[in-house]
């Protein structure tokens, strides 16, 4: 498969501040990439730099193995053959649906324009809406016009800036599915920005997690969730709660929830094999926790909420102010406990994911 996008060491400064530093990214033909990260991490800047609205300080962007964009060779947006779907769609309000769609292809001969228009109108179910103006369309229809308009010049790469954020939650899933189907059937490479990880699972083949101007990890959504590369990735994707732990004499893990045998085979991931007696953090998914009625209590329930997965409890350790104490450990159960109740939780045997996360830092 050919590479559609190759980004090497990309650095962007805006108003004296480094917004993107040393970004690396490669996309093959037909890949759909979801770009996630906390607000202000540089997602939209990366999109705008690829599109050509922001100039890079350093590094290289290669589009479709043809265009090589460097700080010395900046190519104007209109010559990059990159399409974009804007968060607010940016439909031209004074042009009809048909004029909007044909805006980027008006240099082609009329017959070709007409045939592309017809195809897109049919594909995006815009039949009979061609002569309407954007304000006469519903939100979903406007989005489909924006897609048609971006696809008309047949771009190599399609960029989508939070395309689903303005859409009603119930419609969103349906739209994401149909749009994914469309992009796949046309074999279009796409990058879409979101801060909602659920959208990535529905829509994308790959996920890139950004943090403070860099891409931390890129991979399939499943692999990133199973093997986050560092605690920021795990934290942003909210893969579980954190509890402090320490390895003692290479034999046992010590935690506030008791001791566990230390087995190399049980380690999915342990960051830079820490020394003896150093506190690290264990990423703990709710389903790896269970109640042990026979043991002495080690946590207290601070908060109870009702969810579809049963009762959701947030617990804190009963030993406050020690190196092992923790707060806000998530645990789900169908059984109803009472607020302030003390109980014993234990960690089920599973493949541990351990990071050197600073104890009380949130991303």
């Amino acid at each position, binding site marked *: 498969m050919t590479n559609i996008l190759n980004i090497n060491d990309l650095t962007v400064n805006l108003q004296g501040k480094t917004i993107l530093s040393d970004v690396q990214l490669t996309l093959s033909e037909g890949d759909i990439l979801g770009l996630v990260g906390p607000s202000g991490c540089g997602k939209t800047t990366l999109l*705008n730099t690829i*599109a*050509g*609205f922001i100039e890079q300080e350093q590094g290289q962007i290669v589009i479709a193995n043809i265009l090589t964009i460097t700080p010395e060779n900046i190519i*104007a*947006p*209109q*010559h990059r*053959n*990159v*399409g*974009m779907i*804007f*968060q*607010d*769609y*940016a439909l*031209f*309000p*004074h042009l009809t649906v048909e004029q909007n769609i044909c*805006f*980027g292809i008006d240099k082609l001969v009329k017959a070709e324009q007409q045939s592309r228009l017809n195809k897109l109108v049919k594909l995006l179910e815009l039949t009979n809406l061609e002569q309407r103006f954007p304000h006469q369309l519903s939100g979903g229809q406007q989005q489909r016009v924006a897609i048609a*308009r*971006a696809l*008309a*010049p047949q771009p190599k790469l399609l*960029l989508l800036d939070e395309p689903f954020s303005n859409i009603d939650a119930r419609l969103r899933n349906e739209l994401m599915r149909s749009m994914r189907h469309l992009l796949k059937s046309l074999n279009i490479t796409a990058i879409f920005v979101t801060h909602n990880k659920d959208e990535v699972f529905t829509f994308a083949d790959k996920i890139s997690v950004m943090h403070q101007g860099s891409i931390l990890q890129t991979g399939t959504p499943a692999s990133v969730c199973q093997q986050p590369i560092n605690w920021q990735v795990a934290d942003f994707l909210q893969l579980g709660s954190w509890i402090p732990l320490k390895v003692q004499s290479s034999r046992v893990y010590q935690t506030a929830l008791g001791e566990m045998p230390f087995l190399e085979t049980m380690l999915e991931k342990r960051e830079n094999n820490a020394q003896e007696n150093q506190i690290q953090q264990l990423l703990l998914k709710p389903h790896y926790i269970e109640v042990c009625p026979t043991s002495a209590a080690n946590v207290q329930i601070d908060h109870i909420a009702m969810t579809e997965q049963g009762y959701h409890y947030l617990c804190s350790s009963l030993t406050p102010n020690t190196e092992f104490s923790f707060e806000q450990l998530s645990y789900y159960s169908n059984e109803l406990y009472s607020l302030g109740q003390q109980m014993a939780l234990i960690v089920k045997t599973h493949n541990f994911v351990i990071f050197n996360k600073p104890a009380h830092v949130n991303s």
Partner: protein
Amino acid sequence: MVLTLIFPLLVLIIEGISASTDLFSYLWQTVLPDYISNTLILGVFVVILAILFGVISAALIVHSNIAGKAALRWLLMLPLAMPAYLVAYLYTDLFDYAGPVQRTLRLWFNWQSPNDYWFFDIRTLGGASIIIALVLFPYVYMLAKTAFELQDQNLLKASRLLGLSAKQSFFKVALPLARPAIAVAASLVLMETLADFATVQYFAVNTLTTAIYDTWLGYSDLATANALASVLMFFILLTVVTEQRARAGQAHQSNRVNKTQQIIVLSNIAQIFASGFCWLLAIAGFILPFTLLLLMAWEYSTLEQFFALIPSATNSITLAFWAAGLSVVFALIFTLFKRLGTDKRRYLPLQISSFGYAIPGTVLAMAMMSTLAPIDYMINDLAKFLGFSPPGLILSGSIFAVIFAYIVRFAAIANGTIDSGIKQIPRSIDFAPASLGANLPIMLTKIHLPLLKPSIWVAWLLVFIEAMKELPAVLLLRPFNFETLSTQIYQLISDEMLEQGALGAIFIVLLGLLPIIWLNRDKNNTSQ
């Protein structure tokens, strides 16, 4: 290009600073203290009256159950369309010794001479203040009304829940919140008052503007006129700075549209006073003078007079047409540069070119004169040197100077209108064309200009109307024997013969109504 627009002002300021101290000390010993005190007293009186008229009427319209609200809401804006000098003339006509009011009173009470009774004299500083305040208070009314309407209604609800009555809430919450808006309006009123020329001239009240006019046209003393202009300019700058300060604190408005206002219920007696007050303002500021004008036109106008007005009307329209067109072109260049440029200081041209709105026509005229006349001399010298016959005063003595002055003075109107139009266009629209392969010229001609068409049209119209009404700058800058509608009407007023120009005056008032109607229509649209 921007520098060209403000260059004359720089020349004026430099000449003002470098004017000989002898001249200033001479002026100071003779007339200047009088001029300055008259100007300041006039300014203070007008501002106080305009705030009283404007804030009270706005508060009643927004916060009380005053009767006839729907009509008053509109009528209270209309005085803005009346040029103050017209009202001054019409009221003098009405209230003078020989006017119908005093005649009738004499008839009723059988008075024989002015010694038998007291009647107020309108041709005084106080009279001028009242007349000017009557036509300028709508600024305060409109801005205060908007401020009251856009205030977060939850603040008033909160104050009610905390135990205050509707009336107390108004005084303790709504009014203090509207203070920045009122301050901005007051500074606009002050600027217009300082710039007023024809009213005070007609009432023979000596202010800085009349002094500039007299020293230049009466005594051809350019240096003194320039010195006076720079004194006036100093007061204007002071006002502008104060206004900017006031604007900086204006962050009290909410976008939450909330129709359920906490209405103050007026007692029957209060209702009578309140309605009386508002109707009096509307009648005195617009209805009465306009009716007088209509009656005058009906009684005296002939077809001959109508035809006599056509040449000057044509001149007015030609000037206004060019001024409006060029202002819009400049405004488009500046606003598009600000929006699409990459330069760090891309907003500067727009800002600098908008500064001219504060400058009185008389000051601007002096600035034009001191800048363009030397250039003309240079051109003539150059022509002689090259062996051509000297072309004469092609810049300072032609309509070029007038149009230039108009553009400087009204650039702010065009800039403001087009800039607010461009702000309505989402930022993403700037990016979308390039992502579809279109370059800058295509983007401008196919997207931005078509989208801006309504703003361009409105900006053009607003500048056109203002240019039709402008008087002092034309009076000083026009070529010999060149009359516009407003200079002709002013001339007729000076000669106490407005009857012959009544039709033209009606035309000017009607033109002035257009932007008010437009502004109001726009408000209705946005509140829906």
